[in-house]
């Protein structure tokens, strides 16, 4: 099973990711009525995910330019979708 195999191979990395995502989601909902804070959180979430991705791959020595660009693209896409809603 892909999910279990992946989780057990990188359990700590995924725990960190889940905490980061959970905290951001909770903070976003907490500041539901204040756009500025939400936009800052989106920026922080985007950067956090990108850094997490790069570090997770550096740790396993599987880092390439392609991987960095992939994390940059996915992180930016997610952040951009949220950001567009707040304007």
């Amino acid at each position, binding site marked *: 099973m*892909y*999910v279990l195999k992946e989780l057990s191979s990188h359990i700590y990395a995924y725990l960190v990711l889940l905490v980061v995502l959970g905290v951001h989601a909770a903070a976003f909902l907490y500041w539901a009525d204040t*756009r500025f804070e939400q936009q800052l959180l989106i920026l922080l979430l985007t950067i956090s995910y990108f850094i997490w991705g790069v570090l997770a791959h550096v740790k396993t020595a599987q880092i390439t330019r392609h991987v960095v660009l*992939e*994390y940059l693209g996915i992180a930016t*896409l997610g952040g951009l*979708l949220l950001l567009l809603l707040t304007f």
Partner: protein
Amino acid sequence: MQLFETIAHLFHPRRSNNHRARLLHPDSIFSLLLIVVGFGLAIHNLNLVSKDLGSILGYASDIQVGQVVTLTNAERTKGGLGTVQLNETLSSAARAKAADMFEKQYWAHVSTTGKQPWDFMKEAGYSFSAAGENLARDFSTTPEMISAWMGSPTHRANIMNGTYTEIGVAVVNGNLEGIDTTLVVQMFGKPPGAKPAVTAEASETVVTQVATKARTTETATVAPAAVVPTKVRPTPTPTILVFGETPVQVPAGSPSVLSDISVTVGSLYPEQISPLDIMKPVFLSILLMIILTLAYDAHMFERKNTFRVVGRNLAHILYLAVIAGIIVVFTSGVIK
């Protein structure tokens, strides 16, 4: 056949896409980014264009003065407080405040010239011994807005203040700092000598009277400012502001002159669709497509049991799922 090949190339890991769905390659993701940016700009520009074309698209708000009063009183009644009565003079002060915000382009309790909420009340000819103000913008429904106010301790304190006996409400559409929006100004007051509405006296009759009065207010044209009737347009992103958490004691007996505010605000639109209602499903569809592609790619990769160095699909799925969850619960509306 060509279409099938293209689809397979985009979504199915195989030799032609280096065993990774083409959609997940960085260049495809960046192309998608450009499309999303273009789409976002198009939605906003379409809204601007619609002003001249007569409304193709815009912001939709269903906030009504009567509802604001009724729901405010419902909250007060729940808290064991007496209801507040809609006061037309206080409402005209609220409309003047909203018009002033559009005219001077600010979003605050104190105007750019230092004018306080009480000044609008006095100019409207409303005498009071205590007063407060709540502001909201970009909400699409009244319950949503009241709930945001109730969720904020300072706004809640105004709504649940037993000192107040009267309320004035203005719901006005216009363009604030380049954004088409609906401003809601809620003013509370206690005329000099009036008994505080501390005891619960929420009789059906009072509520009905308030609602009836409110409906009259909605249709009344007061100033050139756009007084929002029922379903007009407005609103992209919401906010709230409070003023007068501690009721301000002001000497009674101000001159009884109605303000004559003349403001050019954005024109009124008939019923329109909120950009949020368009963007949400489109963005969710994009996310769903990528999440499904990632899941399928991971599944195929596992079946083939090959080696490749790419980003972690599970991590991407978790990240995008959180983004999708936030989009689902995202509501427009801001308070002050």
